[in-house]
């Protein structure tokens, strides 16, 4: 019996377990999935948790609810990948020998990468919302915060869900308006990039949102430190931005397992062929989702599209055929703009987000790069789709892994 091992039972690992269990005969292939955790978080919900729009129980379920039967769940911590020996060593001293390995270990926040970020003010006036604990701590802070300077900050790219900090700023604007205290709060968005929007079409179409919501921008800010005493963030050029409440997206890094195995780049992301999703480490190792270094967004939709491509390529690889399926970098993301509205963006390696209709060209019903209520309802409905369709690797009608150019307005 051959053995396929998946490391990580988050979005990517779980979808792959479901795809491959349908595609590979149980008598021929053992499939195992390893994760030290026992909870599966609906990560898009981390955005809503701080504002009390979702409760913790809305976004967490047991990992095992989504692992198909006939897939072995290894509930333990992987410590080292040994590509030459084709095995993975676990913390309990056991080794698991594989024929094919899928790395789906995601990305974690690393506040310790910036001087002072994980200092005395961490989770007092310095928060993240990229972890369940961080989002929950921020919810409690916001519930009693009396106002002041809110600074929403991105440390460095790449980050998971690059639009989330912008969505956070928009939702914060709505949140404080609803609490009748918007006049007591200033919102500043601090980014290492040249602006909140960096693509020409999105900039032209969406820049008005910042003005409308009175959000100030500090661009080109490369953070050097968080000063816990003065309550400022400082950049390498000496520029300072003062805060009363800092909501930061710390450096995103790949898993410690990747670092310990010496398989990652300087941020512990695994060098991966951006088209086939085969690792550049060893032909028997494939990579999906946030763990890769492929140049598209780290996002659940990307994982969903990659999974279809990767399944096809792994089946081809097993049969010694060419890996013909090519991932195009497709991402599809709802972007909350506050006040019960959202945008939808659809893009890939080669095409920036533009206006148009989705998923049915010319019809919709969703509109691209335009804020409206139906997109917001789409984002809310997506939680159900995630638990019931996406994780179980069932097809989503009309939505293909390759980005469709039809229905998009490119000029």
């Amino acid at each position: 019996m051959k053995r396929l091992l998946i490391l990580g039972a988050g979005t990517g690992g779980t979808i792959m377990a479901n795809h491959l269990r349908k595609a590979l005969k149980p008598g021929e292939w053992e499939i195992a999935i390893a994760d030290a955790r026992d909870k599966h978080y609906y990560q898009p919900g981390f955005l809503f948790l701080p504002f009390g729009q979702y409760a913790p129980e809305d976004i967490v379920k047991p990992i095992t609810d989504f692992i198909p039967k006939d897939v072995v769940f290894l509930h333990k911590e992987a410590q080292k990948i040994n590509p030459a020996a084709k095995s993975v060593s676990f913390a309990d001293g056991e080794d698991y020998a594989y024929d094919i390995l899928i790395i789906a270990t995601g990305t974690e926040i690393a506040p310790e990468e910036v001087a002072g970020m994980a200092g005395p003010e961490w989770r007092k006036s310095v928060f993240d919302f990229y972890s369940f604990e961080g989002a929950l701590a921020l919810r409690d802070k916001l519930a009693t915060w009396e106002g002041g300077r809110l600074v929403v900050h991105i440390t460095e790219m790449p980050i998971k869900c690059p639009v989330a900090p912008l969505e956070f700023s928009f939702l914060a604007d709505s949140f404080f308006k609803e609490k009748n205290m918007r006049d007591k709060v200033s919102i500043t968005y601090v980014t290492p990039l040249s602006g909140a929007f960096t693509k020409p079409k999105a900039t032209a179409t969406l820049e008005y949102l910042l003005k409308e919501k009175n959000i100030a921008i500090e661009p080109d800010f490369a953070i050097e430190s968080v000063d816990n005493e003065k309550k400022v963030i400082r950049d390498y050029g000496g520029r300072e931005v003062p805060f009363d409440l800092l909501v930061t997206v710390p450096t995103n890094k790949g898993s410690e397992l990747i670092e310990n195995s010496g398989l990652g780049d300087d941020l512990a992301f695994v060098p991966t062929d951006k088209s086939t999703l085969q690792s550049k480490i060893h032909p028997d190792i494939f990579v999906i989702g946030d763990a890769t270094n492929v140049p598209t967004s780290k996002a659940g939709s990307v994982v969903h599209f990659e999974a279809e491509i990767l399944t096809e390529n792994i089946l081809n690889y097993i049969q010694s055929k060419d890996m013909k399926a090519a991932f195009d970098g497709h991402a599809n993301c709802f972007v909350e703009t506050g006040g019960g509205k959202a945008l939808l963006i659809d893009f890939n390696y080669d095409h920036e987000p533009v206006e148009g209709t989705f998923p049915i060209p010319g019809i919709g019903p969703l509109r691209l790069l335009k804020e409206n209520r139906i997109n917001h309802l789409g984002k809310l409905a997506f939680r159900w789709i995630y638990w019931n369709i996406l994780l179980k690797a069932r097809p989503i009608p009309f939505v293909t892994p390759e980005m469709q150019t039809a229905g998009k307005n490119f000029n």
Partner: protein
Amino acid sequence: MEKQIAGKTISVNEEGFMTDFSQWDKAVGEALAAENNLQLTPRHWEVIEYIQKEYKNDVPLSIRKIGKSGVVDIKEFYELFPVAPLKTATKIAGIPKPVSCI
């Protein structure tokens, strides 16, 4: 849009970033630097060659990454390109500025 620089025609976007790297050469780089009030030294060129190499390998650029490159530390990077260093350096190098998804 098109632009005349260093005796050549180059394609640039609204912000003046080149859109076709094959049109770039060192004379173009020098002229783009002059537009940003910079005179390029051998240290500038080492940084520019490094970021061009990373770009060709699809590696996303960040200031921290440049600081860890072994080519230059962050302090010197700011001394070489004092205003919005990453944006300025990529512009002179003829490659797109680092972007997000929107």
